[in-house]
Structure formats: structure tokens, C-alpha cells
């Protein structure tokens, strides 16, 4: 009876000692990030990722040879954690999402000739530079969709690539995939961006795209901060650092070039504190939205208010507040991609 115990104990002791000595003697320093990643991974060493175990997968992630969603047993949860771990970068403390700067789809843009070729934007560019008259617009052939590991980008019914900000992890894989350089990153907190990339002049743009930017600069004038929008090469460039929400600019745009990812916004509301000074009326960009007689409590037309919030700071008695919450675009609106004020 004692023999097996002795054998087992000796064996255990022997291997324990050997291994612990080995661990000291043969110690090799490992990258800190690999350890962090390993902690996130399930450690099943199943090999489903195509790498030799979780450690090798983590190594691959750090080197960029593995894909963030490569861990099958871990699923989406692990993929997101991994993406976050990899994406942690001192420069980008703010959460970023991708945005596609074109909204001139099948309904808006003119087609020169029908493209019969392989389903790839780069491929289409090689054949007479694509079928669109516009040399800057989205080709809608899914090159960005193919590189997205998070199923966050799709070609909508109008033939334009569209990012789902909720699924987007900000990995920037799509940015380089676009032959027309239409995709860039913007803060997730921002909801409005310019949906056009043409550098052509207005008259020419009007010929080929009904939602093309004509370079009219109305949006620049509408912006409340002078540095928020600058014209570069006939095209407004939005700066997201000024705190501007671009609602007024988008509203003023005669070509409807802006894209709003939000369907419902908080609307302004005037409460009983209103003194009827009328200061808010001139700052409101939408005509006939704030009405009332001087001295009497003013009212806001909820149907036309765009929720820009310009009236809030001018109200001395602080009688105006925004009511309601942000709602994301429903499917129907997403397919048209139009920014409408009704």
C-alpha cells in the first residue's frame, strides 16, 4: 500500500523540483501585452485560431499576424476585449468610429457606363476609373466591407458604404481599404459628418451628383465656432475639437451633403421662467421655430426645431432646455441616408 504512495510522491517531488528549477533557469522575458492578452483569452489551447495555442495567438495579435476575432471559442466578447487591448493608444483616448464621406448613391449620382467586372472597388478603379461620373464617390463594391472584422460596415440599398457606429471598434482597417480615400475616423460622440468628397467645382458637381458638395461655404458661415469648418480644395473640412455639433451647418447645406447618424434628437423647450425678451428668436437658424410676442412666454415648434442648442446660451433667465434623448437611425432612414428636417 505504501509503495504506490512512495512512487507517486517521489515522482511528484522529482518532477516538481525539476520543473521549478527549469522555470527559473530557462526563464525568458515575455512582452507585457502578450500576458495581458493571454489573460483575456480562454486558455483552452484549442488551436481553433490556426495558431499553436493561446500564447502563440496572443503573440500573433501583438505582431499583427492574427486577427482580433480569431478566437472562436471566445466569440465576440473576447474579440472586443482583444481589439480594445490592442487599440489602447495614448493618442486616441477618445473612442473613434469610421465614417464614409459619400452619400451619392444610385439615386443621386450619374453613371457613365455599366461596370461588368469583379466585385472590388480597386478592381473597378482599374477599369476606366469606375462607372461613376464623379471621380471621388463611393463605388459601393465592398472593399471596405471585406476588411471589416466586426461586421460594422455595409453597402446600403443605395449602393453606398455605411458604418454602424455601434459595431465599429475603431480599428481603422477600412480606412486604407478605400481606393477613393472616403473613410476616416471621427469621435464616436460626434453624430454628423460631411457625406461628400468631391474636389470639383460646383457647376460640374451639380451635373453628376444631386447631393454633391458645391463648395458654397454656407456651412462654414453657419458654424458657431469659426474654426470648426474650413474650406480645403473646394471641400469643407470639419474639425471635431471645437465642440461644434454641426447641426446648423447640416441644416443650412443646400445640397444636403451632411450625414446624420441620429434619427431623433432632443428638442428645445421653453419653460415658465421665460421673460419674453425675444433674444432667442434671432439666433435660431430655422425660421418661424421660436415664436411669441415680446414680453410673453415664447414657444418652440417641436416639428421644426433641429435641436442645435444655439438658443440655450443666449437665454438670460435659463428658461430653455433640451428635452428628449438621442435615437439612432432606424433601418429605413439608414438606407436613404438623407438628413431631413420635417
Amino acid at each position, binding site marked *: 500500500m505504501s509503495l504506490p504512495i512512495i512512487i507517486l510522491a517521489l515522482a511528484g517531488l522529482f518532477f516538481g523540483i525539476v520543473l521549478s528549477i527549469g522555470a527559473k533557469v530557462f526563464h525568458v522575458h515575455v512582452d507585457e501585452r502578450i500576458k495581458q492578452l493571454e489573460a483575456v483569452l480562454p486558455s483552452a489551447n484549442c488551436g481553433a485560431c490556426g495558431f499553436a495555442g493561446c500564447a502563440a495567438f496572443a503573440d500573433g495579435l501583438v505582431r499583427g499576424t492574427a486577427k482580433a476575432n480569431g478566437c472562436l471559442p471566445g466569440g465576440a466578447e473576447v474579440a472586443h476585449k482583444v481589439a480594445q487591448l490592442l487599440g489602447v493608444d495614448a493618442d486616441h483616448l477618445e473612442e473613434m468610429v469610421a465614417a464614409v464621406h459619400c452619400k451619392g448613391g444610385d439615386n443621386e449620382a450619374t453613371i*457613365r*457606363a*455599366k*461596370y*461588368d*467586372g*469583379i466585385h472590388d472597388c480597386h*478592381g473597378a478603379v*482599374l*477599369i*476606366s476609373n469606375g*462607372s461613376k461620373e464623379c471621380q471621388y464617390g463611393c463605388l459601393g463594391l465592398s472593399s471596405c466591407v471585406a476588411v471589416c472584422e466586426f461586421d460594422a460596415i455595409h453597402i446600403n440599398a443605395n449602393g453606398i458604404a455605411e458604418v454602424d457606429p455601434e459595431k465599429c471598434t475603431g480599428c481603422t482597417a477600412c480606412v486604407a481599404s478605400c481606393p477613393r480615400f472616403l473613410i476616416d475616423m471621427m469621435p464616436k460622440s460626434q453624430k454628423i459628418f460631411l457625406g461628400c468628397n468631391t474636389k470639383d467645382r460646383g457647376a460640374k458637381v451639380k451635373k453628376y451628383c444631386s447631393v454633391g458638395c458645391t463648395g458654397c461655404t454656407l456651412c462654414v458661415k453657419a458654424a458657431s465656432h469659426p474654426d470648426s469648418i474650413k474650406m480645403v480644395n473646394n471641400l469643407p473640412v470639419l474639425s471635431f475639437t471645437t465642440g461644434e455639433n454641426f447641426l446648423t451647418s447640416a441644416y443650412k447645406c443646400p445640397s444636403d451633403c451632411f450625414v446624420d447618424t441620429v434619427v431623433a434628437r432632443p428638442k428645445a423647450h421653453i419653460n415658465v421662467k421665460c421673460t419674453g425678451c425675444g433674444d432667442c428668436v434671432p439666433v435660431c437658424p430655422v425660421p418661424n421655430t421660436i415664436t411669441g410676442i415680446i414680453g410673453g412666454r415664447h414657444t418652440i415648434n417641436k416639428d421644426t426645431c433641429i435641436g442645435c442648442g444655439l438658443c440655450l446660451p443666449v437665454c438670460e433667465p435659463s428658461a430653455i432646455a433640451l428635452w428628449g434623448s438621442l435615437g439612432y437611425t432606424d433601418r429605413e432612414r439608414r438606407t436613404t441616408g438623407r438628413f431631413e428636417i420635417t
Partner: protein
Amino acid sequence: MTTERTLDLHISSSPHIRDSRSVPHIMRDVVLALIPAMIAGFIFFGIRSLMLIASAVIAAVVTEYVISEKLLKRSNAIGDWSAVITGILVAMNMPVAAPIWMAALGSAFAIAVAKWTFGGLGNNFINPALAGRAFLMASFPAQMTGTIFSQSGLFGKVPSPLCGMDAVVTSASATAWGGADALSGATPLAALPNLISSGANIQDTLLPLFWGNVGGCIGETSAIAILIGAIFLLGRRVIGFTIPVIYVATVFILALFFSGVEGASPLSSDAATVALFHILSGGLLFGAVFMATDMVTSPITIKGQAIFALGCGVLTFVIRKFGGYPEGVSYSILLMNLVTPLIDRYVSPRVYGTGKK
């Protein structure tokens, strides 16, 4: 601007003209090339052979239709004739006495599992017909190998498994011979060792083997019918010479050296006879012409095809000599199918303007 609207311009990559030959053309040619062998099967094995073929083809086409159109909703598959070929090949690889439903099951397996799980024509890595046959072999070994000839051919005579050499019939029932409709026995290749050891004159067996009046699977017995099909396919450039010629030659040469005839040198006529016997029997020609040449599952380059055919030949002979199955053709092709992706990866022609590869 108005004229621009009426203009229907298309843009695409060059070239802007295409050869008229397409996948359905190729597949139809293979079906045509199989007709002589089907006729031979009908002549030697009777109407039942055609029933087996019909059942296999119907099962294959129905399976293909259901999977591609109904389950996967891919509309481009059914017109390409490839299911018909698979059905014919499965049936041609069965003994005539096999139950009709078995042919249907085999070809349904071939289409459903070996082909469509990978996404249909061109995506499979293994010859569907052979996979179907191997599936049946593993599932119903008795019905697939025991060559019970329950039907007589057009000549009213049961094909003799041993080419008329009654003396060495090992397990044939005596009453069956000559008129009755059941005869059980081995295929020619299975009987070869007995023939050699009994010292029988193998030369006399070659002619029946050539015409096909012997036992075996429906499609494989008649060398002449297969050769007619082969010539047609070669003429239509559906298959090349590389695979069939190297395959058959490899088996021939190996059989010359390891003929099994006591004391015969590789160059003796005895060895040559045995080698010819090897070529004409056991479905070698059928496999070499119709199955090893399957484009999808054989290498793409000529050099690769040569390696593939050599491997098939060696494996066929090894299985015949040492293995548990007397024929070895279908398994050797299946095994080489597994190697094809590796060959395709590493064997490529010497590119213009580069030195040694």
C-alpha cells in the same frame, strides 16, 4: 446629354471576346464519351445495367437540384451536366447485381457530401463518384465486391468472371454455369494469383478482357469501349494524354517487374502477359480515362499531372499486390486526390524569363 442616355455603354476588363467552350460543353463531352462504355455494359450485363445507371443519374440530378436550388438558392449549378457524369460514374463502378437503390444512395452521397458540402462543382477536393463508390464499398462490402451475376447479357450468356477458364473457378456454383442466371465468383484480378499459380494460359484471357465479356463492374470491363471514349475525349481536348498514359504505363512497368510469375524476367512474355492482364482488368483503364482525369481533383499543371498519375499507378499496384482490395484503382485515385492540393501548391511550370525554377 440626351444621346448619352440612350447609349448603353459597358466597361469591363480586357479581353472582350471569349472562346465559346464552356463548362457545360466539357461536361457534355464527357457524357458522350461514356456512351460506348454504357453500350458495352448493356451488351454484356443486360438491361439491368442501364437501370442502375438511370437510378444513379436520377438520384444525382435530383440531389443536385434540391441542394443547389432549394437549400442553397444558387441557380448556376444545375445546367452544367456534372451531376449526370457523377451519376453515370457511380453506377458504372458497381457490379450489375447491386440493388438499384444502392446506386441511387451512392450517387446521392457523392453529390451531397463529397461535392455540395464544399459548395458544388470546382470546390470539391475529392472525386465525388469515387467517394460515392468508396462509401458504398465501406457500407455494403458484400454487395459491392461479391460479383454475383444475376443477369445475362444480350448474348444470352452470363459473362464469365474468369474468361471461360472453368477449371480454376473457385467458388462458382456448378449449376450456374451455362444458362442459369446466377453465378458467383471473383473478378478477373482477384483470380489472377490463382491463374498464375495454376499455370493456366493467361494469354487466352486477354481478348475477352479487351472486348469486355468478363466479370466486373458495369463500366470497367470493356477496354475497347473505354478506348473509344478516350479517343473522343482526347480529340475534343477535354482530357490530356498525361494522366491516362502515365498512369497505365506505371502500372504496366510495375507489373512487368513484379509479375508474380515464378522466375519470369521483366522482359519475358509471361511477365508482359500478366502486365497486360493488369491493365485490361480491374477498372484501370476506366479509372485512368474517366476518373483520374477529373479536372477538379487532379493537378492543374502538366508536370503536376504527371506526378499525380505516377502516384496513382504506384498506389494502384501496391494495393493490388499488398492491400485488402484486389482492384485498387478507386482508392489510389482517391488518395492522390488528397495530395493534389499539395502538388498544385509546389509544382508550377517554369515562368518565361526566369532561370531554373
